[in-house]
């Protein structure tokens, strides 16, 4: 769902798809941070527990840097050498929009299969 730069500067203009190969890891990170701040290792273990797939360090920090750059997450004060991250208001809104899109997509797919979503 691409938009031109003339579109309003709102949360729905933050398609994670523009993050390329980091879009999916970025979504996982946003979901992981949605229940509270976490540092890198906690995000990795949480994503692995949630998705069943490991998130590797290079991918994690490539996605973290992009999310922070776009103001979707923010870093907190370091605890020892570990730095927690948390969702910003814009990040929470963007996550909500992304999840709404995924839900609509899933419902459309299930409807085509003749299986109404539960």
């Amino acid at each position, binding site marked *: 769902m691409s938009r031109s730069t003339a579109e309003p500067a*709102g*949360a729905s203009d933050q398609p994670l798809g523009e993050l390329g190969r980091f879009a999916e890891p970025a979504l996982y990170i946003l979901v992981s941070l949605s229940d509270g701040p976490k540092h890198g290792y906690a995000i990795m273990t949480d994503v692995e527990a949630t998705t069943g797939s490991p998130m590797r360090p*290079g991918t994690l*920090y490539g996605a973290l840097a*992009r999310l922070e750059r*776009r103001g979707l997450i923010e*870093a907190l004060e370091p605890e020892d050498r*570990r730095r927690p991250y948390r969702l910003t208001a814009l990040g929470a*809104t963007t996550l909500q929009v992304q999840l709404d899109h995924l839900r609509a997509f899933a419902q459309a797919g299930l409807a085509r299969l003749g299986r109404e979503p539960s």
Partner: protein
Amino acid sequence: MSVLLSLYPKRWRERYGDEFAELLAERPPSLRDRLDIVAGALDARIHPQLAGSAARPERVSDRFGFAPLLGLVAFASAVVLAATGPVMYDDYGSYRDGGAALPFIILAFVLLSLGLYRVIEGLPRNAVAARAAGWTAIVAGLVWSPMPWMLPIAVVFMLGTVGLAIGARRAGTWPTWALVLLVVALAAPTALFGASLFLPWYWLRTSGIEPVVFFACIGAPWPLVAGVLLRGTPRPMPA
């Protein structure tokens, strides 16, 4: 570890180096992790994200913000025309005939409505209350513009605008300073016009209060909506 870290650009290491090293200490990297780190370092060099506290997210403005800006000119023209209109007399005293201002004030509200619509579009789907407030402000503004003497409609317009701004603030698309300015600017006219619900319609004219000042306060949404849209919110850079 230091070899893997050294593959990253210096600025990246300054920002993420400590926590990245700590992460690798907590979870020693496998061969696939090492390959991923090499790819990550290459990506950090090709697509630097300028990470760090000094980096500011890129903002892309919404050119539709020029609509309320033009609306502000129309609104200011309307206020000037209304304040300098011919003096008329009736049973309740004298007043300025602001009929010449009507086309300008209607135009001002049409242009503001465009801006408000863009703010509504930027809200998440579940921001039902804020969307309703925004549409209320648009409808009330458009209804009020050809009959500015109907002050109760002005109250609805102003409350709707504030409701939309609060929702947009929660969504992260309306800065706090703009919300504060909006509330401060609209507080007095909202209270005044709200009082008109319980007082005779000619109360404002006979109160000794200069109506132009309060109508000028109602102009706050125009520059603020324009400012919010033209300022933009953080947008992705092409990766």
